[in-house]
C-alpha cells in the first residue's frame, strides 16, 4: 500500500545490470515500502514529479551480486536469466519492471515464470522477447568485411546491448577467424581471436578513434565480393511479386545502414 504521508522515493540507477540490481538492493534495504519506491534509469529523461524525492544509486558490485545470488536461490535460474536479459535491453522502464518482478518472485518462488497475467511478469517477458528479437535480427543482418590481413570486421548500431548475446553465436560459427564486431551505439567491441575465445572491450571509439575508423574500410577485393552479393540480391527478387512494404516490415530501414546490399560502392 502506498503510504501517502511519505514522499515517493525515486531511485535513479545507472543503465547497467549492476546499476539496476544495486537499486533493487537499496530499495529492499531501506524498508521504505515497495509501494513508495520507484526505480528509474538515471540517463532517462523524466519529468520531475511533485512530492517525490530523488536518490542517485551508485552501482556497487557487491550489492548487485548479492541480489543475483538471492534470485538464484529463492526464485531460480530462469528468473535470473530473465532479469539479466531485461537489464541489457533498451526499454526505458526496465529498472522498475525488474524491481516489481522480483518483489513478486520473492513471494511465490520459481512459479513466478507462469504468472503471465501479472502485468510486471508479462512486461518483463515482453522486454526479454524484444531483446532476443533484436539479437536475432543482428544475427541475420550483421555484415562482415574482410580486411587485408584477413580480419573480419563488422559495425552495428543496436538499440540494446546485444554483443553479449551475439558473440557466442559468431564465435561458434567462425571459430577459425579473427573478428571484431563493433557496437557503435554503446562504444563497445566484441573481439574474437582465432580458436581462443572472445571478450568485450569498452570505449574503443573514445580511446582509439583511428582504429574504429579502420574497421569500416573496404579493400578492392572486398568491394568485388560485395558487388557479387549485390548482383545476387538484385537477381533473386521475382519482379512480378515486388512488395516494398513487406520488405520493410521484415527488414526495417534502420538495420540497413551497414548492409552492403543496400549501398553501392560507387557512391
Amino acid at each position, binding site marked *: 500500500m502506498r503510504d501517502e504521508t511519505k514522499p515517493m522515493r525515486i531511485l535513479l540507477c545507472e543503465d547497467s545490470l549492476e546499476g539496476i540490481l544495486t537499486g533493487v538492493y537499496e530499495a529492499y534495504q531501506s524498508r521504505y515500502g515497495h509501494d513508495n519506491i520507484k526505480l528509474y534509469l538515471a540517463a532517462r529523461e523524466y519529468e520531475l514529479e511533485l512530492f517525490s524525492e530523488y536518490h542517485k544509486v551508485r552501482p556497487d558490485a557487491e550489492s548487485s551480486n548479492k541480489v543475483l545470488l538471492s534470485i538464484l536461490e529463492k526464485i531460480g535460474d530462469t528468473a535470473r536469466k530473465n532479469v539479466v536479459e531485461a537489464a541489457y535491453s533498451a526499454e526505458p522502464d526496465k529498472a522498475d519492471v525488474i524491481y516489481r518482478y522480483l518483489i513478486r518472485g520473492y513471494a511465490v518462488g520459481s*512459479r513466478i515464470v*507462469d*504468472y*503471465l*497475467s*501479472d*502485468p510486471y511478469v*508479462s512486461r518483463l517477458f515482453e522486454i526479454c522477447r524484444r531483446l532476443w528479437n533484436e539479437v*536475432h535480427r543482428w*544475427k*541475420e*543482418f*550483421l*555484415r*562482415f*568485411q*574482410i580486411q587485408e590481413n584477413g580480419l*573480419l570486421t*563488422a559495425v552495428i548500431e543496436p538499440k540494446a546491448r546485444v554483443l553479449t548475446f551475439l558473440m557466442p553465436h*559468431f*564465435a*561458434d*560459427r*567462425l*571459430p*577459425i*577467424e579473427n573478428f571484431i564486431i563493433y557496437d557503435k551505439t554503446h562504444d563497445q567491441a566484441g573481439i574474437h581471436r582465432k*580458436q581462443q575465445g572472445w571478450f568485450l572491450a569498452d570505449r574503443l571509439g573514445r580511446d582509439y578513434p583511428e582504429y574504429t575508423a579502420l574497421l569500416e574500410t573496404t579493400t578492392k577485393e572486398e568491394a568485388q*565480393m560485395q*558487388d*557479387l*552479393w549485390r*548482383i*545476387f*540480391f538484385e*537477381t*533473386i*527478387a*521475382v*519482379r*512480378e*511479386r*515486388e*512488395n*516494398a*512494404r*513487406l*520488405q520493410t*516490415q*521484415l*527488414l526495417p530501414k534502420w538495420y540497413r545502414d551497414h*548492409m*552492403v*546490399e543496400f549501398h553501392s560502392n560507387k557512391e
Partner: protein
Amino acid sequence: MVVQEGLSLERKLEILGDAAKYDVACTSSGVDRSGTGNSMGNTLKCGICHSFAADGRCISLLKILMTNECIFQCKYCINRAKNDVLRATFTPEEAAGLTMEFYRRNYIEGLFLSSGIYPTPDAAAERMLETVALLRFQYRFAGYIHVKAIPGADGQITEQIGWLADRMSVNLELPTAEGLRSLAPNKSRKTILTPMRQIQLGIKQNRQAAREALPSGMPGGRVLLPDRQEEFLPSSLECRPEQLGDLAEENSYTLGKPLLKGVTSGFVPAGQSTQMIIGATGETDYQIMSVTESLYQKFDLKRVFYSAFVNVNQDSDMPNWIGRTQLDREHRLYQADFLLRYYQFQIGELLSEDRPNFNMLLDPKCDYAVRHLELFPVEINRADYHTLLRVPGIGVKSAQRIVKARRMAVLDFPDLKKIGVVLKRAVYFITCQGKMMYPVKLSEDSITGYLIDERKQKELKGEQIGYQQLSLFDLPSMASGYQPPVAGGGGAQ
C-alpha cells in the same frame, strides 16, 4: 541454344541465380549443429534469414543452379532444352568458393544447389556432389546445404550427396501423374518418387542406426528400390487419398556408408521437402492438399511448398498469370499446410469432395470454425489444449501460454490480450468464466461478416498488403515458418 564461353563470375551468378529464383524453398532450418572449433560454420534449428529481397522473400541461402543447360523439356520451365536462353555453368570450385566467401561475411546460411539436367542426370548429379564434397572436405564447411536430388540419377550418387547435405528435396512438380505426363514429359512419377523414397528410408535407417549406437550408416551396397512407386500417389484427377496405401517395404533400400567422414551430422539430418506447381493443371485444393497430407504421412516430408504457376514461356495453351487470384490461392494452401503440420488438422476436416476449394474470404481455420459453430464457444479456463488450438486467433504459442497461465489465475479477456491471443478473431468463439466479451449472436453469416480477411477488406480499399501480417498463426520463426510464397514456373528440379 546459346552457349557462351568465358562468362565472368558476375555474369554466371546473374544467370544461374536468376534461373534458380523460382524455387520456393529457401529455409535453412531443421538442424542444430554447433561449430566444431576447427571448421567453418554451424546451423540453427530455427534457421536464419539474412536479407529480404524486393519481393519480401527471405534470403537465407545462396540459391543457384549448377547449370541451366538442360536436355529435358518441361513446359513450365524457362531452361527447357528448346528455349533460346543464355546458358551458363558453374565449376564446382566457383560454386563452392562463392558459398564460402558469402558465408564468412554473414550474407548467407549456406548453399541451395539445384541444376538443369546436362548432359545426363548422372553427370549433373555428380557435379553437384563434387561441389558439396569440396565444401565439406576441402573448406571444412559446416553451414547449411540444401541439394535438389536429380530425378533419374543413380541412387548411389544421391546417397553420397545425402551424407553431405542437410536437406534434400525432389520436386513433385505437379500434384497428379497426369499433370506430370502432360507438362514434364521427360519426368515420371517413378523417377521423382524413387529418390524421394530413397531419401526417406535413408533418413530413417540413419536415425535408427544412431539410436542403436551403431557406427553411422548400415552395411551398404546396392540401391534397391521398388519399381512401382507410381501407385503410391494418386495417379489421376480422381484422387482418392485412401489409395495412397502403405508403400515401401522397410528393406527396399539399404543406406550405404559415406565414402569419407565429413563434418555433417548424419544422412539428410534436416529432412526432405518438395514443391508443387499450382494452377497449371486443373486440380482442386482438396486434391492438392490430399497429396500433401499423404506426402507428410507416407514420405515423412518436412515441408511441402506450393508455387503458383507463371507462364514464363508464354505458351498459348497454358494458363496466363492472373496475379492476385493465384497468389491468394497459394496463400490458402500454405495456411492449410500449416494447420496440417502444427494444428493437428486433417484435410478431411477442412475440405471435401463437395467443398473441394478453400473459401477465398476466410482463412481455413476461421472457415472451419464458422462451419462448426456447434463446437463453440469454448471456455478458456477449461478447454483442453487441442480444443484451444482450434479457436481462430489462438496460435500454438498462445494456447500453450493459456494452459500455463490459467494454473495460476483465472483468465479474463484482458489477460488473453497480454498472452498474445488475437481477440479480434477469437471473441466469437470463446468465453472467459462463462461470459462472452460481446453479446454476439453465433450464426455462420454474422460471424463471417466480422471475420472477412483483413486483406480482402484492404484490397477493396486498394492497399498493398504484406503477407506476413495477415497470417493467423504464431510463426515459430521467420525462416522456418510460413514463407511469403513465390511464383513458380522456372527453376530446375
